[in-house]
C-alpha cells in the first residue's frame, strides 16, 4: 500500500478553509476512490482500532471536554445525536394538584415542575419517583418564593388518598393511595446512598402571596428527549474539528507583528531569532477560525487555515442528573 501524493493527502484529510468558504468538506469514504493510483482506501477494523485514540482534556462535575482522533464525521455526529436525544432520564410527568390558590395556573405550575432536573443515577422503568410539594403562606406574613428544594421525596409512595366508591369497605384495611409500592423505596440500596433530590435547590418554581397555598404530588418517570425536551440529559453537547494553521512562508519582522495583532485569540507568538523576529503558531487549538489572519491583500498566500478531518474536540455539558463521563458510555 503506497502513499498518496501530498496534495491529494491534503485533500483527503483536511478541510481547507478559504476566505470565502471551506472546500473539500466531504470525507472520501468510497473504498475504490483511489483505485487508479493503486491505493486501498477501504478502512478495515484493525486499522481503525490501531489509529483511534481518546484524550481527555477537562473533566469537571458538570462538563467535560475530550478529543477523539481517528474517527469519522458520521460516527461522531451519531454520538452527538444520541447524547442529546436518546439517553433516558427521569423527569416529572404527572402532577396531581390537591390545592392551588396561587396566581400561577395549574398547567403552568405543572410545566415548570416538569423542567426541573432531578438527580438520579439510574433511571429505571419500574421506578416512579413521587415528590410532594406543600407550601403555605400565612396571612400577614410577607410573600414567599417557592424554590425547588421544597420538593420532598416520598419514598413510601403517594400520600393522597383515593376515594373509594365502595362506602361499605372495611375501615381497618389500609386506605388506598394512588401508588402502591410493595416495599418502601428507602430500602432499595442505591436510594439509601443517594436520596433523590432535585439537582439544584434554588430553582424558583412559584411565588406566593399571603393566604395562598400550593399542595401537590408529582410523579417522575423515565423518558427520552425525543418525546419532550425536559428529558434531556445534557444541557448541550457539541464537537468541532481541530483547526490547523500553516504558515506557507516565513513571516518576519513587521509582518509578524501585524499577524500577531490581527488574531483575536492570540494564536501567534513572536520568536526571536538571531537576525530578526519570526511568527510561529503557538496555540492552534484555540483558533476559532474567524479568518482574520487571511483577510486583506496577500495574506492568503502566507497563511493557510485547515481543519483536520478526523480529529474531533467534543464538549459535553450535563444538566447534572448524571456526570458527563457516564453519559457518554
Amino acid at each position, binding site marked *: 500500500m503506497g502513499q498518496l501524493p501530498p496534495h491529494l493527502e491534503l485533500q483527503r484529510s483536511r478541510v481547507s478553509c478559504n476566505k470565502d468558504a471551506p472546500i473539500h468538506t466531504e470525507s472520501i469514504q468510497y473504498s475504490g476512490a483511489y483505485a487508479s493510483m493503486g491505493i*486501498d482506501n477501504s478502512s478495515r477494523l484493525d486499522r481503525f482500532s490501531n489509529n483511534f485514540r481518546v484524550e481527555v482534556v477537562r473533566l469537571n462535575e458538570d462538563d467535560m471536554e475530550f478529543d477523539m482522533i481517528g474517527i469519522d464525521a458520521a460516527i461522531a455526529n451519531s454520538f452527538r*445525536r444520541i447524547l442529546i436525544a436518546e439517553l433516558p432520564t427521569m423527569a416529572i410527568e404527572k402532577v396531581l394538584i390537591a390545592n392551588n390558590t396561587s396566581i400561577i395556573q395549574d398547567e403552568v405550575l405543572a410545566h415548570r415542575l416538569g423542567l426541573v432536573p432531578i438527580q438520579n443515577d439510574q433511571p429505571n422503568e419500574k421506578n416512579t419517583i413521587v415528590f410532594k410539594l406543600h407550601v403555605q403562606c400565612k396571612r400577614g406574613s410577607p410573600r414567599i418564593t417557592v424554590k425547588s428544594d421544597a420538593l420532598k421525596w416520598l419514598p413510601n409512595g403517594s400520600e393522597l388518598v383515593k376515594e373509594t366508591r365502595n362506602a361499605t369497605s372495611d375501615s381497618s384495611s389500609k386506605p388506598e393511595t394512588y401508588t402502591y409500592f410493595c416495599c418502601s423505596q428507602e430500602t432499595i440500596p442505591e436510594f439509601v446512598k443517594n436520596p433523590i433530590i432535585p439537582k439544584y435547590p434554588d430553582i424558583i418554581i412559584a411565588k406566593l402571596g399571603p393566604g395562598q397555598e400550593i399542595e401537590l404530588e408529582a410523579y417522575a418517570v423515565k423518558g427520552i428527549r425525543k418525546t419532550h425536551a425536559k428529558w434531556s440529559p445534557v444541557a448541550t453537547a457539541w464537537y468541532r474539528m481541530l483547526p490547523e494553521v500553516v504558515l506557507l512562508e516565513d513571516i518576519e519582522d513587521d509582518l509578524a507583528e501585524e499577524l500577531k495583532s490581527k488574531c483575536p485569540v492570540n494564536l501567534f507568538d513572536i520568536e526571536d531569532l538571531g537576525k530578526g523576529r519570526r511568527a510561529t503558531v503557538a496555540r492552534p487549538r484555540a483558533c476559532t477560525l474567524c479568518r482574520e489572519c487571511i483577510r486583506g491583500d496577500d495574506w492568503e498566500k502566507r497563511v493557510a487555515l485547515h481543519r483536520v478531518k478526523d480529529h474531533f474536540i467534543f464538549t459535553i455539558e450535563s444538566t447534572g442528573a448524571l456526570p458527563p463521563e457516564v453519559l457518554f458510555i
Partner: protein
Amino acid sequence: MEHGSFTDNSAATFSLTDEDHTIANAVRFTLNQDPRVTFCGYSIPHPSEARVNIRVQTTGDLAREVLKDACQNLMLMCRHVRCTFDKAVEDFKASNAVKAMKIDSQDSSGDDSEESE
C-alpha cells in the same frame, strides 16, 4: 422490508421504520468502507415520518449479507470507542489524583523544612 428484484440479489433497498439520520448515516459510512459495495446511500422519504431507506448495490454479493456485515462492523467500532474512552477517563482521573497528591506532599515537605530551621 426489502424492495428489489427477485432475480438480482446484489442490489436492494431496505426500509427501516422508527429511525433517523443517527443510525442511517453511521451505517452508510460503514457500508462505504466495504470494498464489495458499488453504491450505497440513504434517504428520508418525508421528515414527518420516521422512516429511512438505505440503498445498497454490490459487486455480486448478497445485499442483505453486506448490510449485516456493515452493522456488525459498526457495533465493533462502537465497542472499541467505548473501551478506549473508559481507559482514557481512568487515566485522566489517575493522573489528576497523582498531581493533587504531589502538590500536597510538596506543601507538607515545605512546611517541614521551615520548622526544622
